[in-house]
């Protein structure tokens, strides 16, 4: 019996719509494009970075943006010995919760460090920008130790 012909069709998954990120997430991403980081004031006055659209406790709509710093402090971290293919770095690095100067709530991003022993809770870090910023969370390429 001859080999059956295998039918092939190239397929590229595409989305036929665009999506607006809205006045809060959109503002944050637009500021990232300008290499600037903003947070938002929660109902209890805490500054949340990245900004949330609604307060998780009171459900109030949030709108008061606050300028925050590009440096901050590590609140917690996880040391990735073996980065996964999807990870933003392909050499050992840390995921960290980083409380930026002027913020009250930590954000999660990656931190470049040569070795686990270089990094610690409380360590100071600063944002490293991507060569080209496009209004995406990855405009912050990573944080590095100060």
């Amino acid at each position: 019996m001859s080999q059956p012909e295998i039918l092939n069709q190239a397929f590229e998954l595409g989305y036929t719509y665009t999506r607006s990120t809205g006045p809060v997430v959109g503002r944050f991403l637009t500021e990232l494009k300008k290499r600037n980081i903003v947070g938002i004031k929660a109902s209890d006055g805490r500054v949340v970075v990245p900004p949330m659209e609604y307060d998780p406790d009171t459900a109030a709509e949030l709108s008061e943006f606050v300028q925050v710093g590009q440096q901050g402090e590590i609140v917690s971290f996880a040391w990735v010995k073996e980065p996964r293919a999807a990870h933003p770095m392909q050499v050992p690095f840390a995921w960290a919760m980083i409380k930026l100067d002027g913020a009250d709530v930590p954000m999660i991003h990656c931190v470049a460090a040569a070795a686990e022993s270089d990094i610690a809770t409380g360590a100071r870090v600063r944002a490293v920008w991507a060569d080209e910023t496009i209004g995406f969370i990855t405009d912050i390429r990573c944080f590095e130790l100060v």
Partner: protein
Amino acid sequence: MKQIAIVAYQQTDSVSDAGAVNEVELIMPVLARTFKQAGLKSAQDVGFTCSGSCDYLQGAAFAFVAGVDALGAVPPIKESHVEMDAAWALYESMLKIRMGHADSALIYGFGKSSPGELPIVLSQQLDPYYLAPLWVDSISLAAMQARIMLDRGLITERDMAEVVSRSRRNAMNNPHAQLSGDISPEDVLAEETYLSPLRKADCCPVSDGASAMIIATVEQAKAWGLPYVIISGIDHCIETHNLGMRDLTDSVSTRIAANRAGMNAGKVDVAELYAPFSHQEIILTRALGLDEGTSVNPSGGVLAGNLMMASGLSRIGEVFNRIVKGEARRGIAHATSGPCLQHNLVTVLEQGENA
């Protein structure tokens, strides 16, 4: 309000790789055993069917629909699905029965996690603008949670190792377990860190498998002549998706759900907790205020095998089994979903008359 009871529960073994077996082939043997246990023939014999699974595990939209093939859904049945652990399918089924739309229900959950990279798949359940594009994996998030607890002196690495050791030893009596053995805390601590501060043993394994359950009104259970365990309470509660705004050292939502489900109305003989990481079992035990009087995770818990989308239902099934065997009179089962115990469901189970 009609009392609802569990009459049957079955699960597959937890295996690291089910090989070429597809989801339908995973589910069918479990359903057959569940029907047999209840003395029923098929899904035609229950009033409602609800499943829990995740299309992201199969990598295709509406992949869960294929799971219905395991039921033989002709003639048509009343059927629903949750894109959640099947513990939430149980929750939906209870609502269906309480509304008077059914007297009995079949619930099943399944997951074949082995073909993908589960911790990365789970990164896509996070905030779509701030976290998912970073592909921050589920183990890294749990590792940061553990470090906060270690830094604050709320736990020690030894405490975590003791959880692992107890899980492995308990799992020696669980024929479905994937990881079991006479492992001491010292053995665990001798391991190097995997995703610091976590060791590999602190993390649940990736598993393939399925579980299924049949529930019914107490009247129906009696009519069937089956031993039954009453579900005296069930509730769930979720915390914000912003991990930075949560107290990651506590599980407030678990405590609220347990209080609303009536956990504290009596002694808790047994608790099965869905803690995918060792430190999370400690968080949950403390959040629920459990003491030595409660046997925690006698099955080994999910550190012994984690059937994604079915492990929550399995916790309930494990407590059902203990009560039917007479090892406990009253127990609680906990199910979780989301990063670092974000969303939690608590079920309270009590001995029925002829259980």
